[in-house]
């Protein structure tokens, strides 16, 4: 029985359950000439019956899926000839893998071995039985659930309350899923990072001034010192982010003020989507632009001014990144500025304030929580940005505040550490997880500060 057919039958059953539940509730309502009062509306009983019909097969499916691989493998091994059963565990697993591959039509190592072929036939048979049994049990569960749900319907059944509770539980589990995923990611990064810190001390990672993650494979290799000081990376991240914010905050904020306060409605309706397109351009395209157009330009200009500049510079990457995050600042700020009530503006005008005085002294302070929020969103975007930096700022981990020098960022190093074939026990690879962990803590702190700032201003001004 194919999976699609099974799902279709289950859906049909649940539809039948809905109808049956509804009919029974309506019938109960009509008993005694409508004098018995149902606790809930008939549709609540119907939904409850439907849930009764759907939930048991889902539970069966979940439990079955967790268990069945182990059971089938156990059965398969049990029926293998005795000489296979004597094999050590690791070898036995290889044989089982062979059988599985052969059953799925993949290339297997011992495809011409008759015992293996026989076992494969047996395995396929087991799989088929398993699939069939699963479907049958699920359908039985659905029918049983339907029957129970239908039987339970009575004027005293608080169907509305039950339905609400089930919906509530469903929503809670969805929210929990998102939170659990975050925790899972954090834990997996944390454990790998702890493995890294077993070889490299935390202090030398956090405060070391040199980053050179090439570890030597042999003792006589040169140029592979394996220094894991993260300070140059974070310095590079902050340098580029700072340059980007210096571009994005003034331009974004001022264009938001123009759009919200001065532009005509028609101009605004055209200009705002155009500005938002900036956020939709793939970062790789920005990277081209930074590496091929802006970086040479920066170099020419700085050399004309007598400043020595690398062909890949923090300035080029930062400028382009700033342009990329302008819409984050401008679009959100524009929304919060527009949301400042007209009464506020009227009050200021009535005091004899000009338009710009009103903006500066009343509207901006009123919109400040939202503006701070938009800026912090842009900052976390800048810190996490990778592609532009790879292409325009280079890979060399220089500890410098000179915007004309090549620098690198945390995210870029994580990418270069993990690209290609890697051994997962070398500190070089594990360093990526440590960097990721610190980066995560950094953005987390930033978000906490943002929330605090926003809440503080809100308490004061709303």
């Amino acid at each position: 029985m194919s999976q699609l057919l099974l799902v279709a039958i289950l859906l049909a059953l649940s539809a039948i359950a809905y109808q049956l539940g509804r009919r029974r509730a309506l019938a109960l309502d009509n008993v005694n000439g409508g004098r018995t009062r149902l606790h809930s509306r008939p549709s609540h009983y119907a939904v409850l019956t439907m849930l009764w019909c759907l939930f048991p097969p889902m539970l069966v499916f979940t439990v079955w899926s967790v268990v069945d691989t182990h059971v089938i493998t156990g059965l398969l091994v049990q029926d293998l000839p005795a000489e296979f059963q004597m094999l050590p565990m690791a070898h036995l697993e290889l044989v089982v893998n062979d059988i599985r591959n052969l059953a799925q039509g993949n290339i297997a190592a011992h495809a011409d071995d008759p015992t293996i072929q026989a076992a494969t036939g047996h395995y396929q048979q087991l799989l088929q039985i398993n699939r069939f049994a699963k479907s049958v049990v699920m359908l039985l569960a659905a029918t049983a659930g339907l029957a129970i749900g239908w039987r339970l319907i009575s004027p005293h059944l608080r169907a509305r309350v039950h339905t609400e509770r089930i919906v509530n539980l469903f929503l809670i589990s969805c929210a929990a899923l998102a939170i659990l995923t975050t925790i899972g990611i954090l834990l997996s990064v944390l454990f790998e990072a702890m493995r890294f810190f077993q070889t490299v001390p935390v202090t030398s990672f956090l405060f070391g001034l040199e980053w050179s993650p090439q570890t030597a494979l042999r003792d006589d290799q040169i140029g592979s010192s394996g220094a894991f000081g993260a300070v140059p990376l974070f310095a590079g991240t902050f340098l580029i982010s700072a340059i980007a914010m210096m571009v994005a905050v003034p331009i974004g904020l001022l264009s938001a003020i123009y759009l919200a306060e001065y532009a005509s409605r028609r101009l605004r309706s055209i200009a705002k989507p155009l500005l938002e397109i900036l956020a939709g351009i793939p970062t790789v395209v920005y990277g081209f632009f930074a590496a091929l157009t802006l970086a040479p330009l920066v170099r020419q200009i700085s050399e004309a001014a007598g400043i020595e500049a690398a062909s890949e510079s923090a300035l080029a990457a930062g400028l382009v990144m700033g342009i990329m995050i302008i819409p984050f600042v401008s679009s959100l700020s524009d929304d919060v500025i527009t949301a400042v009530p007209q009464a506020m503006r009227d009050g200021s005008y009535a005091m004899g304030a000009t338009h710009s005085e009103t903006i500066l002294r009343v509207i901006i302070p009123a919109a400040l929580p939202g503006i701070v929020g938009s800026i912090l969103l842009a900052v976390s975007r800048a810190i996490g940005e990778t592609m532009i930096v790879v292409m325009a700022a280079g890979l060399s981990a220089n500890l410098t505040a000179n915007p004309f020098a090549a620098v690198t960022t945390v995210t870029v190093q994580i990418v270069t550490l993990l690209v290609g074939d890697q051994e997962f026990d070398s500190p070089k690879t594990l360093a990526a997880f440590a960097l990721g962990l610190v980066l995560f803590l950094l953005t987390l702190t930033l978000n906490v500060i943002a929330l605090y700032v926003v809440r503080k201003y809100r308490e004061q001004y709303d």
Partner: protein
Amino acid sequence: MNTLSEDLLISRRIGLSISTEDLDAAEVAETNRDTVGDYTVFDPKITARDVNVFYGTKQAICGVNLDLGNYEVLAMIGPSGCGKSTFLRCLNRMNDTIAECRVSGKIHLDGENIYHQNIDEVLLRARVGMVFQKPNPFPKSIFENVAYGPRLHGMTRDIGTLWDIVESSLRKAALWDEVKDILEQPGTSLSGGQQQRLCIARAISINPEVILMDEPCSALDPISTAKIEQLIDELREHYSIAIVTHSMQQAARVSQRTAYFHLGDLIEVGATNQIFSDPLHPLTEAYISGRFG
């Protein structure tokens, strides 16, 4: 003033008992809507002559003539949408902030046409302050709310003088005793009535000559309303006040002259006493006796 409101109540009761039928639309349309009563005063602060206001193509005010005298309270009453707020907003050119609004006619403040092209509306609004229907304190501290105008117009550079201005404004607005210890708290933390008095303090902090009030009590409870009405009576000593109100009792309590607007026309203007006890125009009579509104 008590006797007046008692009179008003009696007249309303009589009006209601005599005739409860509404004036129908045709009857209103046929009625002559030329202004009844003397719209001039001996010593005018503001004179408005033949004022028309259009929102796009819709005419909101039709040829209104009206004077505001020195140190008097002029109440403007009338049913919703009659143009009384629109007229009020003409007097300090607040209508300029509405894009599709057009004003014609002459409005003079101390003999000077405020719609003349050489007049700066920013300076005009410093002379003609305004209090709005809904209290709209700025998102700043109580002190900064009142200090906003003086700072804006560079009235003083000395923080001590600024404090004096803030204190005297809050005292005039009868709010000082309630807020003197919490001046650094946000203006929005006050109650509605206190917020409205804060807005009045803000308006008088820059020593305007005229104060316009657009239904200043409509969002307030009776006790706050009583406080603000008392305040308006006190402020009359120093300022000329024009107030738009929906409450006829309020108009009767606080004003010396009353103007009745109807569908963009100024129907009748006269001494408040006369308007409420002996209205000349049938529309005015119908409105104050509660037959429509």
